[in-house]
């Protein structure tokens, strides 16, 4: 796999809806794979092992991939309107057991490029390049084998993600799906000497595997029913079902078809950290921060959104799939936001906010706004990466300190301005401050909730969550970045600022729970440790942060391009398999629920919110909610003076006005801080019983199953034992027995003859 020359470029025999893509499109995934192999080779060569070579290999190959992606975009953008372009690298699984349709399983290494894949690949490769650049500096303390390992896994991740997004069939998507899971496992467990990191990695992989099983079964069911797993052939086959939906004959759609999306979404929930499988993502923060930024915020976790958007026609024909997705998304958003409000570890807060924002995206999908979801994925990728990388820079500079009670005024320390400003931009985006990218993308989803019949309640839940999001986001900002300049270094204080210790785990956390007691730690002035000086980020980190901050603001621009098609993202999504639903306002009738709604209300009036068009009024509602959240955060956590918007009062790092408020809420903050005990719930309800069952099985195996076998061995032995007494070894006894036997035989003979 090192060379790309043997790549066979075959034309696909798919219907006219697709056309053949350029051969070099296959390079987009394979360059990162090449980089992975090269990083591995570098690790084998001792003299160059401890250089930054792996980082540069990765940055360059990802950069070239990004450039190729841009070229693909430039060349094919127009063509996507008429269908995807497909490039087949080689035949992977091709098994035929008959000549009729449905008797050949084809899953090639074929790459499928349409608006949806293009959108995803643009930010995957683009952000990948930037974050690799960031990581080249961030991981520099670990140069050597670890550095090679990091970048090899990093490249492998981009390859897997590309297979996931660009695969032209569900099985290649599954390859990418599990591949990103593997890379996530390897990178979360990067600091493999820390038991918590190893445990988190394991947890992530296993949780994902549960989802993967759902996905695998969904893929099988798809093949089972439709006889193909290739998009190009699959979606035309779904069309009749959509037609019968349109005609109001829901009962014509076979039950099995309706079950497919239910299985697929289990996979999506696992990978995208939704209820009930979300618990791995916060723990995944044990990994190095660039990994958290790229994998666990910007790209991998949006794979679930991609999956649902890609297979939207299948979701459409199911009566239950999308409502389930909607509720799961909204509830996850709310739950994660409440947990995020009570955490002290800034990286974990960001992790919970990721879970929460992913909930928005799922809800958006369920509201039939693939565009809204994709747009949110797009903006979220930029601003969440920015936020994570800022947290990472803080952690890097303060020896692993992540507790927001032990840091204050970071923005105003020397050399930290870019980090602070980037953080502010990210926070504004996340909290949906007016005219930021996050504002537009979130609004699109929220408005859709009120447009789609039956989802009003979810709409209000999501609006409430938006307020909570603004609060906890700015809680971090007001406490860590503004206010008096105080800090307390983390537990990774080095003898010098050289950071030359490869063995030193960099992303240490105070053990969860202990540091989270109601009693805040004693605030220590920054001169507690004279030998420690925070070291501000270098050029690579600063460049990346500045660029990302600008990009995350600029992402709003996508909303204004091609507005007649719901913005640039909308136009991209429109030219894909998700298109059947990404239609203009007022055309939501395709959905089953909406459809029934239509049947009952002949004159289907457009839904309204507060008597106005939801799309218009949402701008104001969400802006107000966001600003209120920010103001509450300022009041409770803001420092005295302008930094706290003149309503804050905090003067030290560890205490703020919120501490006085918390006891009045009873045990609720404590419960939220303990993540509503979901982990413990799983531990006691699932893991423990399973482990006990394993122990019981072990005993059964040793005693019962093997015992029976041993019994069969024991019986003859026992019989032999009782028979051996006759063998005394005394000659006379033998002779006597023989004589006795003879007598008996003679007697019998006599008896018989008589």
């Amino acid at each position, binding site marked *: 796999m090192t060379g790309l020359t043997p790549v066979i470029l075959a034309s696909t025999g798919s219907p006219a809806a697709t056309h053949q893509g350029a051969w070099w499109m296959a390079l987009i995934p394979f360059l990162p794979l090449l980089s992975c192999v090269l990083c591995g080779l570098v690790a084998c060569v001792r003299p160059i092992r401890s250089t930054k070579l792996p980082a540069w290999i990765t940055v360059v190959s990802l950069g070239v991939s990004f450039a190729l992606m841009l070229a693909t975009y430039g060349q094919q953008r127009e063509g996507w309107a008429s269908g995807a372009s497909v490039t087949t690298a080689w035949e*992977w*699984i091709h098994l035929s057991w008959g000549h009729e349709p449905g008797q050949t399983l084809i899953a090639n290494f074929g790459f499928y490029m349409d608006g949806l894949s293009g959108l995803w690949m643009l930010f995957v490769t683009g952000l990948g390049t930037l974050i690799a650049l960031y990581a080249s500096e961030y991981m520099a303390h670990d140069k050597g084998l670890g550095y090679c390992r990091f970048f090899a896994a990093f490249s492998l991740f981009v390859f897997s993600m590309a297979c996931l997004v660009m695969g032209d069939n569900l099985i290649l998507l599954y390859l990418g799906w599990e591949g990103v899971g593997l890379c996530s496992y390897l990178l979360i467990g990067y600091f493999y000497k820390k038991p918590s990191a190893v445990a988190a990695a394991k947890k992530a992989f296993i949780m994902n595997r549960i989802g*993967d099983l759902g996905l695998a*079964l969904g893929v*099988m069911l798809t093949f089972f029913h439709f006889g193909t797993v290739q998009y190009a052939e699959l979606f035309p086959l779904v069309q009749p079902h959509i037609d019968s939906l349109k005609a109001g004959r829901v009962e014509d759609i076979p039950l099995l078809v309706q079950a497919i999306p239910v299985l697929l979404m289990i996979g999506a929930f696992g990978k995208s950290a939704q209820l009930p499988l979300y618990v791995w993502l916060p723990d995944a923060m044990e990994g190095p921060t660039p990994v958290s930024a790229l994998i666990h915020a910007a790209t991998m976790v949006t794979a679930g959104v991609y999956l649902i958007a890609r297979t939207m026609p299948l979701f459409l024909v199911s009566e239950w799939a999308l409502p389930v997705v909607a509720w799961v998304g909204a509830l996850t958003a709310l739950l994660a936001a409440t947990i995020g409000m009570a955490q002290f570890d800034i990286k974990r807060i960001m992790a919970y906010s990721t879970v929460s924002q992913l909930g928005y995206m799922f809800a958006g999908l369920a509201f039939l706004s693939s565009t809204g979801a994709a747009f949110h994925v797009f903006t979220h990728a930029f601003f969440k990466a920015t936020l994570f990388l800022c947290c990472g820079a803080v952690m890097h500079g303060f020896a692993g300190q992540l507790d927001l009670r032990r840091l204050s005024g970071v923005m105003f320390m020397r050399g930290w301005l870019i980090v602070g400003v980037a953080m502010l931009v990210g926070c504004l985006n996340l909290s949906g401050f007016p005219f930021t990218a996050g504002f537009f993308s979130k609004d699109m989803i929220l408005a859709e909730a009120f447009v789609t019949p039956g989802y009003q309640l979810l709409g209000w839940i999501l609006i409430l969550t938006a307020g909570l999001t603004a609060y906890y986001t700015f809680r971090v900002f007001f406490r860590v970045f503004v206010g008096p300049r105080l800090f307390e270094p983390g537990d990774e204080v080095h003898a010098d600022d050289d950071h030359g210790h490869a063995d030193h785990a960099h992303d240490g956390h105070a053990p969860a729970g202990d540091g989270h007691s109601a009693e805040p730690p004693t605030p220590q002035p920054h001169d507690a440790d004279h030998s420690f000086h925070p070291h501000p980020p270098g050029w690579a980190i600063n460049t990346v942060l500045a660029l990302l901050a600008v990009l995350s603001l600029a992402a709003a621009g996508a909303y204004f391009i091609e507005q007649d098609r719901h913005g640039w993202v909308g136009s991209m999504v429109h030219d894909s398999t998700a298109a059947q639903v990404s239609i203009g306002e007022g055309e939501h009738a395709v959905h089953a629920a909406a459809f029934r709604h239509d049947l009952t209300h002949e004159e289907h009036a457009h839904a309204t919110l507060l008597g106005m068009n939801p799309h218009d009024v949402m701008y104001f509602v969400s802006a107000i909610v966001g600003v209120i959240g920010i103001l509450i955060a300022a009041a409770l956590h803001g420092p005295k003076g302008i930094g706290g918007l003149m309503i804050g009062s905090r003067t030290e790092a560890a205490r703020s006005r919120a501490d006085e408020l918390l006891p009045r809420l009873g045990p609720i903050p404590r419960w939220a801080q303990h993540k509503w005990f979901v982990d413990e719930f799983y531990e006691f309800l699932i893991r423990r019983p399973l482990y006990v069952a394993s122990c019981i099985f*072990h005993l059964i195996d040793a005693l019962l199953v093997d015992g029976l076998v041993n019994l069969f061995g024991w019986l003859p032995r026992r019989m032999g034992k009782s028979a051996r007494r006759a063998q005394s070894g005394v000659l006379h006894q033998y002779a006597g027995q023989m004589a006795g036997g003879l007598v008996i035989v003679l007697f019998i003979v006599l008896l018989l003859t008589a």
Partner: protein
Amino acid sequence: MSPIALLSLMFVPAASAVAVAAAPAKLARHIALVGTLFAIVVGLVALGDYDWSRPGAMQASGGFEWLPELGLRLSVGIDSIALLLIGLTLLLGPICVVASRTAITERVKTYYAWLLVLQAAMTGVFAARDLVLFYICFEFTLIPMFILISLYGSTNRKHAATKFFLYTFTGSIIALAGLLYVVWFNATKLLPTAFAGAGTWTLDIGVLTHAGASMSLSEQSWVLAAMMLGFGVKVPLFPVHTWLPLAHTEAPTAGSVILAGVLLKLGTYGIYRFVLPMTPAALVEHAHLIAVLAIIGIIYAGLICWVQRDVKKLVAYSSVSHLGFCVLGLVAVNGPGLSGSVLYMINHGLSTGALFLLIGMVYERYHTRDMDELGGLASKMPIWSTFMVFFVMASVGLPGLNGFVSEFLCLLGAFQSPSGLGREGLGATPGTLGPWFAGFAGTGMIVAAIYLLYMTGRVVFGQLKEPRGHHAGPLPTDLTVREIAVLSPIAVLCVLLGLYPKPVLDVVAEPVAAQAQWVWDHQPGATPAHAESHGVAAPNDEPPGEGE
């Protein structure tokens, strides 16, 4: 490809065994290596004649009169499936020889001689077209293995070897009884007009296949039960699996590799070659029962892995779990299931064999396999750890590595062979399993991730933990070039079979389709028209894999 070539594949290792026994002890290792490598060369040369356009046909078939009075012929022949398994056997030969270099220092001649004899016997099993030759080779694998375990194993080796021998021997005797019934049936109950070879005392497997399929359902059921007992022990299928963990734990590394790599496959190969075609009606009748046993094995053995402390025992139990998928695919009796199973035989041999090699390498250094005493080896043995994680992932069934394709196909095969709901699906095939079976078996994927990552988390990652009083032996801390050379070919094959399984799938597809066709054609009440509706190529009255 001529039968001579096949016979020489058996003869070369056997002759090398004699040479090892005759030559001085210090040459034993070298002769064994040359012998196994030469066998590969012979195989490759013979492969030049293989007709790839007819992978389903028995090629290189033929043989010599052996004891004509008893109807015995030394007849051999291979289709593509036997070819693949012989390939696996040949590949593992030199790997085992090289891997044993430092582990075996006493009674070297005996060791290598029996290792070579074992290889000859295993090759014979896959090549045999005569029932007696098959059975002799099948049973003869026990003797070298018994000696390898009882002379070169760990502390409890005598017990393990005895149990291994008696357990599998008892099973195969019962299987032989079933097979002999078919012989008797063919000779006495069938008219010579039925088909060529009917009504004669013959031991030709092709003829017997025909004869078996003509038995009544109840006769087939009894024969099926007998054969499943014999081959099931070998696989091993729950609940007759308990010899395996014991034998694996006590066997020397190379013994474990061969045991997991090839010997277990004798069971699944037996099911494929005998159970499926000889008792088609009974198999379909009872497929769901066998599948349930396989699924119980998958989950049950997987969960047991989780509470093991001995790494080798863990991997041994994982074999039980993994082979469950293989059996599940076999009893699904359709294209994907059978091809998946055949692929699984190869893939499991590679990845689990490699895991045993890796564990053996650690054992040579630390003289323990206890996870309470070992841990965090990544910081001390990075190369070993890289290989370990790689093969663990192959074993977990990560797509892109070999395990995935076969596991997925086995599950797919089970999934798409429903007897009820969904039969009208485009991708549905006739069968008696269905989505529920695949769903339950699929949980094995999760369980596999749990126990293998649990092991990786303890042994590879975490804080370095070494047994007390450990002092470095003659081996360096991390792997030597020799050890890397042992593992690398397997790793390369894992990647190749994972990313480009098409050549293997292509050659497997035809015999497998014919096999499935044969089974469904021989259901009570099946008519050729019914058979055609399954869409398999052409009605084919030859037993699968017949004719040159």
